[in-house]
């Protein structure tokens, strides 16, 4: 592929700055957990299902402890206490709590050491379950290798999981390597995860554990039929970020959209809550062997791509360091990037190449998730298709790894069966036709592309210096990313941020840290 040589000193400075930016946030949020994190622990302890009013049991348990002002201890010890006291599994405990038959706060305390140990045992069992699914993926990947990059990533979004299955299988048979089930509008603001198989969503299908299971099963079947492992993606953003990470780990999802700032900027979710949630959810992703997809591509929908390239890069550095701190290896950090410059701009294609090259050079081991043009598409489906052809070319030329296939009907509707077909066909063609194109070309010094890449990196470093100076919360408050301003204490879901008590325990986190050797405030050394 075509290569760009970065100024290593500058890159190191960017890494140092962002590492410091991220450490600052970590320090300021270390004393807190969230309702969503606790619900994930509950889920991982085996609590699932809904009560008679349809409220998910993880919510029931967490709300119950919260009402008793015990949530600061974490759910884990309290569930362990019930276990030790009554010999109940967490699921049984939740069931009783939900039926009003059990009050956890009035149960006799079975001893801190004993409870902590039980909690750790429950956590160990949970992680074993996840580990098993991870190993399952590894062996499937060995048996059913995915021969070509970039992987072709398409979305299904009918709103009905059973239709999604039909469309996903067909997409896979047409050549898609990765299937993302887009979720319904509005789900990210729900402070619970809907339950069971669902058949009605708008602009997407609800992310539920059962939906995950149904789709994973269908894709496993299809993977075997095709001799190629089809990866499954869903979102762990929004108010339930860590819970969905847990569900994804259990149902062997392969990638998850997980961004440290997307919820803040695009869903007006409280910033502290988001930073805390992303930390734990990424640990789960890391343990599950999930590749995360960050969401910088989204910035270019609210600000101009030509002028704001540096904010995408700066955010990638920051997201990267958040991810490293959660134990994700480079190979699991799928940084979001996008082809969004106004096609009316002279040399737009060269500028797109410049930024695509740059992100590859800056994060050489990270599988960039390259997003297609969307903003400048209109109902002229023919021109949209031509624009995607350029995107496909740049993707292959610059050696991107995860290629979100652009749709000719982007400005019209979520993709029809035939839209996905046409788009996959065009992307496949380019992957073959331009296979060794990048190897054939050398970037000319001081050319329009080279100058743009260099300029972007300089601006990115400036921006990171500025963010380092004022802190990430302040930067967000000033609208540095995506042109969106959010205050530290504003936004949805802040009430779900809980100060940890001195007895707080999250045994899942502890174990993951231990197994992946991630110390709080430190990144692991593979960098």
């Amino acid at each position, binding site marked *: 592929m075509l290569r760009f040589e970065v100024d290593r000193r500058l890159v190191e400075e960017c890494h140092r700055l962002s590492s410091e930016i991220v450490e600052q946030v970590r320090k300021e949020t270390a004393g807190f957990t969230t309702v969503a994190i606790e619900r994930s622990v509950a889920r991982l302890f085996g609590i699932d299902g809904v009560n008679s009013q349809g409220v998910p049991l993880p919510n029931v348990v967490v709300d119950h402890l919260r009402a008793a002002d015990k949530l600061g201890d974490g759910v884990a010890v309290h569930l362990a206490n019930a276990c030790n006291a009554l010999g109940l599994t967490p699921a049984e405990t939740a069931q009783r709590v939900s039926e009003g038959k059990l009050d956890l706060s009035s149960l006799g305390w079975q001893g801190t050491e004993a409870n902590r140990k039980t909690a750790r045992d429950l956590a160990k069992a949970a992680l074993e379950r996840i580990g098993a699914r991870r190993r399952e993926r590894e062996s499937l990947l060995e048996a059913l290798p995915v021969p070509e990059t970039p992987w072709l990533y398409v979305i299904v979004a009918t*709103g009905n999981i059973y239709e999604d299955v039909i469309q996903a299988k067909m997409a896979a048979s047409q050549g898609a390597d990765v299937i993302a089930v887009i979720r319904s509008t509005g789900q990210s603001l729900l402070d619970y995860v809907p339950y069971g198989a669902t058949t009605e969503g*708008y602009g997407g299908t609800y992310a539920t554990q059962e939906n995950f299971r149904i789709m994973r099963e269908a894709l496993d079947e299809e993977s075997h039929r095709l001799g190629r492992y089809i990866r499954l993606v869903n979102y762990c953003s929004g108010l339930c970020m860590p819970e969905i990470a847990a569900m994804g780990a259990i149902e062997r999802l392969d990638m998850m959209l997980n961004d440290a700032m997307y919820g803040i900027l695009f869903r007006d979710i409280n910033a502290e809550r988001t930073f805390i949630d992303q930390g734990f959810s990424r640990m789960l992703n890391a343990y599950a062997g999930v590749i995360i997809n960050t969401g910088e591509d989204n910035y270019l929908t609210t600000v101009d791509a030509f002028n704001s390239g540096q904010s995408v890069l700066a955010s990638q550095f920051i997201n990267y360091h958040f991810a490293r701190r959660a134990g994700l290896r480079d190979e699991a950090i799928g940084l979001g990037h996008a082809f969004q410059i106004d096609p009316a701009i002279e040399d737009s294609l060269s500028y797109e190449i410049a930024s695509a090259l740059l992100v590859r050079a800056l994060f050489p081991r990270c599988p960039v998730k390259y997003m297609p043009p969307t903003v400048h598409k209109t109902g002229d489906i023919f021109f949209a298709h031509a624009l995607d052809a350029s995107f496909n070319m740049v993707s292959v030329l610059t050696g991107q790894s995860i290629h979100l296939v652009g749709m000719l009907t982007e400005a019209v509707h*979520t993709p029809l069966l035939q839209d996905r077909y046409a788009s996959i066909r065009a992307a496949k063609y380019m992957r073959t036709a331009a296979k060794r194109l990048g190897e054939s070309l050398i970037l000319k010094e001081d050319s329009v592309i080279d100058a743009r890449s260099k300029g972007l990196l300089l601006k990115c470093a400036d921006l990171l210096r500025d963010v380092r100076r004022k802190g990430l919360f302040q930067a967000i408050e000033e609208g540095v990313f995506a042109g969106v301003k959010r205050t530290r204490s504003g936004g949805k879901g802040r009430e779900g941020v809980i100060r940890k008590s001195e007895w707080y325990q999250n045994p899942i986190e502890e174990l993951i840290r231990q197994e992946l050797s991630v110390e709080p405030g430190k990144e692991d050394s593979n960098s």
Partner: protein
Amino acid sequence: MTGLPKEHMEQDGFVLPYGDHQNDGLVQVSFTLPVKDGPLGDEAARQVMRSMALKEPQVVESTPLGEGYTFFVGYGKLTRPVELAKLKVARPLWDKLEPQAIERTIRERLGREIVVVGAATGSDAHTVGLDAILNYKGFAGDHGLEAYSGFKVVNMGSQVPNEALVQRALEVKADAVLVSQVVTQGNVHLSNLTNLVELIEAEGFRDRVVLVAGGPRITHALAIELGYDAGFGPGTKPQDVASYLAQEVSKRKSLYSNRAF
């Protein structure tokens, strides 16, 4: 959508699609059928085209998409012409004004600021279009309503429940309520928009407010049909909306001179 030169609305005669020759009626279609590819599938596709009143239906491509589905591209000829003079088009009743004229209209005809509240309602989180109309920055080189001294703008942002929007409109005594709807899958925009009108009617201030909808699938005609005063689709400039509001709110002032706010 607004202030269009007259000739855009006043064509007549009978027209047919035009591909290669005047009135050849040529239309391109594509669709997917749950049939296997093969002669039967092709015939099914031709039958679909016949159902679409297309003569000489030609299937020029049939590609299997996977188990039992086939994608077709076809061309056919439509023979029933459209009579332009008979078309019913909801006509915009305002003129496009220059910014100074907008300010002047508000100052001279209304004599106070126009208060507008805008939101992307329901679970819709697309704010780019709404912001383009409301925020100072504007769209395609044209500043948003905030840039006018004649407008006081409350932009509530995205995913705003209809109830919250109604509440806020009452609070700030809004002259106009501006709603953006971008997501249309399952016609969710239609139910959202209808629900808002109902809430406003229930609160009893429908006649005191100019109600405007916008979004890529909104047309003026659709908005009228849903009980709105105006609708703005793709490519709308803030100036279009400002022109409309300046004229409409001023006009209403004289109609409802006894209005509460």
